[in-house]
């Protein structure tokens, strides 16, 4: 029942806002440590893993005899782990610090906007649900 009420989209939006919060925390940490000697800038990757897990078109689903054999592409958001690592695409400054302030600030702005976009989509979903539950019986 709950599967049809709160479908794949709501779940993956929920996962997305969690990952965006993680990215916000990591970017904040990079900005706070922009002057710390030897600090290595961190990066969060989750978009590819999430889009593979959601697999809206079903392209990733493996053909098997038993549908329970492989959960790949079956919309298992619980399986998605964000990848946090030292950003390799950086310029090292004299003191060994690899934080690029401009990049971090633009990442911060972009992340906030996409976070809000995900929230807005969740709200639209909930509004539609509310509409159905309130007006459907009339």
């Amino acid at each position, binding site marked *: 029942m709950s599967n049809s009420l709160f479908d794949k989209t709501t779940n993956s939006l929920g996962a997305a806002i969690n990952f965006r919060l993680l990215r916000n925390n990591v970017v904040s940490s990079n900005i706070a440590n922009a002057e710390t000697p030897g600090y290595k800038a961190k990066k969060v990757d989750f978009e590819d893993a999430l889009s593979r897990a959601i697999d809206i078109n079903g392209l990733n689903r493996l053909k098997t005899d038993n549908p329970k054999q492989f959960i790949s592409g079956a919309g298992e958001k619980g399986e998605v782990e964000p990848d946090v690592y030292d950003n390799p695409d950086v310029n090292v400054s004299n003191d060994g610090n690899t934080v690029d302030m401009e990049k971090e*600030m633009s990442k*911060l702005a972009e992340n906030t906007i996409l976070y809000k976009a995900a929230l807005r989509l969740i*709200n639209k979903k909930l509004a539609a649900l509310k509409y159905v539950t309130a007006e459907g019986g009339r």
Partner: protein
Amino acid sequence: MDFSKAMAVSSSGLTAQRMRMNTISSNIANINTTRTPEGGPYRRKDVVFEAIPQAKSFGEILTTQPDRNIDRVQVTDVNVDRGAPLVRYEPDHPDANAEGYVAYPNINLMEEMANMIQASRSYEANVSAMQATKDMAMSALQIGQ
């Protein structure tokens, strides 16, 4: 994973940059100071930043794996410049030595001004990060309304 972590990290950045600003102000104010309680001219001070894994409490440190990906910044040391002071020949100065030379702090005003600008820009960047976090938290509160 919560908002308070990002807030704490950003505020640690604010504190660190403010402390840096304090030492820079002290350096600029004392650029001509020839007398200190320790004796001799004023020595230039510089903060040392260190990245420390963000953890709320002692209990959290004991019970959970520290999150190596989110570090706050902390001023762990204030480095005092032990280099030779600038010496000028001023025989009438009360702090002049027997040969008539006065030891002045070895402080470069231009360097301090550049550091000051860098510190205030970093402070602003941390304020922006905190603003963005607050923005996200406030919009998360609007879910379902």
